[in-house]
């Protein structure tokens, strides 16, 4: 069992034990050797705890406290259960009708529910008891009514989710009436939801029942529940606190138990809120300055990235090596799942929680700062280089922007992260950046919110943020995938132009080999977490050396060559689980899909070896010197 399951189990068991401590004696009350809870005995009033025959002593009328607690708990639990069941029944009926029929029925019912929800919770129950008169049955009814809206809303939501499922439509087509469909198809699917709602509300119901009785509006003497005992004991708080304290304690134990159990049950269904996987600490290596001699902007050495998986963890990026020279434009190309995005994110140590990178990502010493190993840098160093020396443009620009802040504020924030500017200088800088990315036409753009911008505008804005500090390297991670084709070309042209003009290096991450090859000088092809080919763009496009590169080119359409046949690559890239189960250097990762694979390919893994002007990870590269 996973640690998480165990923890929930523990919560559930603790809850059940607490509930049982109260409910079991209450259930067995008639069988237990308890004195009559209503039997008054003026002679033995206020006997202390531990008196023979009265373990917990007696109350102001000489009644046995333990017996009253057990019998009181019996009434409290019974009333709370009945109220829950009634609220669930009525609420579910309203929710089902509203959700199933929609339109006018939904409008009418839910507006009614809305009005009930406009009342402070307890007040509605109080008003009903006031009208009907005090008494346990009326209190139960009042509490049930006050809770109907909660059930109605939740059940309606659940019905809306299943209303258009295939099996419902099928039943309709089969000519069944609505009543049949609700009872046979809808209701059974709602049972788990309703049961969970009941478990999570039961605690409230116990508290409310006790509350009304406490105020004297529920159980009437000689009948008693935990709440009315607590209310009676109030008078004796100064002299005999236990008469009031004990019933409250029993309520607390019962409700804590119910809530612990309910939480464990709900966490099972909504794992987000529960305890989840332990944060995997990324290894903090001793910080060593990188060698001064590395040429260029960036050098990645032996980069390995592990992600958590069912089998405990899988190395999804394995031994990636490459460098980027100053002002060079490099494409990193691969199918989804090839590890290219993780590789790109690790260059800024921006990996998601739980994902750990090892190896070296060296930023070369130059005018903008000393040499740094990004993966081992202390937080302050890391912050200093992010956005200033290396900037990252994500795939989905809207995910890069905070929906709650105006875009101008966010651009200003990106500028201020590394530049301490006065308001006027800041304003000028922002206008300059917006002009650079072609966003200067809309004078009010800065005061808009991200959701008010078009996809293209958002992407330009994120590019402006990336340009804010003139970084040596811009990483664009599928930065145009979410845009339509004309915009794609525009944005790519913009990025290329800005980088060329200002002598910045660009790492363009994409799945589209043909597209990026136009804009880059060099292409790195990635497959299953490895670089399989590294060559100048023009050479690679014309004469691919790795069979995978050739296959990628074979399945992308080329402009002006409509007659070119498209060939899909047979098979699937390895899954995370398969990578997790791999022995080191077991075979060539592409061999299972490779049309040219030889027995040798299945015996050991080739290295990324220089072949002429390029590097290829293949034992039998295509003839292309």
């Amino acid at each position, binding site marked *: 069992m996973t640690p998480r399951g165990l923890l929930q189990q523990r919560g559930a068991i603790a809850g059940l034990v607490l509930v049982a401590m109260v409910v079991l004696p209450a259930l067995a009350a008639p069988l237990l050797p308890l004195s009559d809870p209503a039997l008054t005995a003026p002679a033995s009033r206020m006997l202390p705890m531990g008196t023979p025959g009265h373990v917990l002593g007696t109350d102001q009328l000489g009644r046995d406290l333990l017996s009253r607690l057990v019998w009181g708990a019996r009434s409290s639990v019974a009333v709370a259960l009945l109220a829950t069941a009634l609220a669930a029944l009525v609420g579910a009926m309203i929710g089902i009708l509203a959700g199933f029929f929609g339109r006018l029925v939904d409008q009418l019912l839910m507006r009614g529910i809305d009005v009930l929800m406009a009342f402070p919770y307890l007040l*509605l129950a109080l008003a009903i008891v006031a009208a009907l008169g005090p008494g346990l049955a009326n209190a139960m009814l009042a509490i049930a009514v006050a809770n109907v809206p909660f059930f109605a809303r939740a059940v309606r939501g659940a019905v809306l989710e299943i209303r258009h499922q295939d099996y419902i439509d099928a039943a309709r087509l089969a000519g069944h009436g609505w009543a049949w469909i609700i009872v046979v198809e809808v209701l059974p699917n709602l049972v788990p939801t309703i049961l969970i709602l009941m478990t999570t509300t039961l605690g409230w119901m116990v508290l409310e029942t006790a509350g009304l009785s406490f105020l004297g509006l529920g159980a009437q003497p000689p009948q008693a529940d935990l709440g009315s005992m607590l209310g009676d004991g109030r008078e004796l708080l100064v002299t005999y606190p236990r008469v009031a304290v004990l019933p409250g304690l029993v309520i607390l134990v019962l409700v804590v138990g119910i809530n612990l159990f309910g939480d464990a049950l709900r966490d099972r269904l909504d794992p987000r809120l529960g305890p989840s996987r332990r944060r995997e600490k990324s290894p903090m290596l001793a910080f060593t300055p990188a060698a001064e001699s590395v040429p260029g902007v960036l050098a990645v050495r032996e980069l390995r990235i592990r992600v958590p998986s069912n089998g405990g963890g899988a190395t999804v990026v394995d031994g990636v090596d490459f460098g980027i020279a100053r002002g060079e434009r490099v494409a990193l190309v691969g199918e989804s799942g090839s590890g290219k995005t993780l590789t790109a994110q690790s260059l*800024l140590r921006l990996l998601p929680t739980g994902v750990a990178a090892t190896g070296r990502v060296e930023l070369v010493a130059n005018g903008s700062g000393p040499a740094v190993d990004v993966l081992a840098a202390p*937080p302050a160093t890391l912050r200093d280089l992010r956005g200033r020396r290396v900037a990252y443009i994500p795939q989905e620009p809207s995910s890069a*922007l905070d929906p709650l802040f105006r875009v101008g504020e966010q651009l200003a924030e990106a500028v201020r992260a590394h530049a301490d500017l006065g308001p006027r200088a800041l304003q000028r800088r922002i206008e300059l950046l917006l002009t650079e990315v072609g966003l200067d036409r809309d004078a009010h753009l800065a005061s808009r919110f991200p959701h008010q911008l078009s996809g293209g505008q958002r992407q330009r804005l994120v590019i402006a943020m990336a340009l804010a500090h003139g970084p040596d390297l811009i990483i664009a991670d599928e930065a145009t995938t979410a845009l339509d084709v004309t915009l794609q070309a525009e944005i790519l042209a913009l990025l290329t132009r800005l980088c060329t003009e200002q002598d910045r290096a660009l790492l363009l991450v994409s799945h589209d080999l043909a597209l990026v090859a136009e804009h880059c000088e060099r292409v790195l092809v990635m497959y299953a977490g490895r670089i399989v080919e590294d060559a100048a763009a023009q050479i690679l496009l014309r004469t691919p050396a790795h069979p995978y590169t050739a296959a990628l080119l074979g399945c992308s359409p080329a402009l002006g060559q409509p007659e070119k046949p498209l060939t899909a690559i047979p098979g699937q890239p390895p899954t995370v689980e398969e990578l997790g189960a791999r022995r080191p250097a077991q075979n060539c990762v592409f061999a299972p899909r490779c049309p040219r694979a030889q027995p040798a390919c299945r015996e050991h893994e080739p290295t990324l070896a220089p072949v002429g002007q390029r590097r290829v990870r293949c034992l039998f590269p295509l003839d292309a010197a």
Partner: protein
Amino acid sequence: MTAYLIKRLAMLPLVLLGVALVVFLIMSLVPGDPALAILGPYATPERLAALRAELGLDQPLPVRFARWLGSLLRGELGHSVSLERPVLDVVLERLGPTLLLAAAALALGTLAGLGAGMLAALRHNRPVDRLVTLGVVLGISLPSFWLGLLLILVFAIWLGWLPASGMVAVWGDGGVLDVARHLVLPAVSLALVAAGVIGRLTRGAAIDVLGADHLRLARGRGVRERRVLMVHGLKGVLARMVPVIGLQAGFVLGGAVYIETIFQWPGLGRLLVDAIAARDLLLVQGGVLVLASAYVLVNLAADLVQHQLDRRTLGQ
């Protein structure tokens, strides 16, 4: 913002009309002769007949509702039998102390709940998180009326630090300090449940928000960690929590009924309990109506604040 405000304000009379309708329907549940129920068994036949005519009991339900609504709009809530005074005067007199108590409790509960929830999310799956999670369960499981009694026992009776009751009027002679001393115990008892609910939901919201891509990518732009958490994280959490806090106002206003009874607080909650005991139905009706209206206004305010925080919430 203005368009949203106008739209919400235009909805307000409709919601209040709905509230009035529900109160009217509940009061029409009173078994037997309402006039007898209101005036009690010792009323003279003349007074009973007069009240029946005033309530229009011989008329059909919709007509009675319309007539009652008309008198509501003229500010007439009827006459309290038990207090021999106009209901409106009594209710307005008692509203102030209740709002003071509820506001103090809600403020306390919000601060504690937001703080604990954020802390738990920041230390997700560490001991602090577990402690908060456990504390939250305890908070939402505590009967507030019992907690109130325990606090009286410990802080008023045993330690003698704070008064258990004796609050007569908010604007009495004792000054602000005296009011504050009387406020501590009831506000804390009332705040704890709200703190539990707010803490639990804050933790969930904060785990979501702190894991959001835009926070990670703000870090990727070199934005300082403190700013990422305290500006982007906090606003994200607040935008999601403000409606929840508005809803908690309902629990606090309802819970005030217990707490005011225990601490002898001169508010609407205690008035309601006394009125129910005295079968003073017109007083109950007036009190419920005013408290529910206050709650509707609080929720309207919460929605407006949320819209200010997150402009994507338009209409609905």
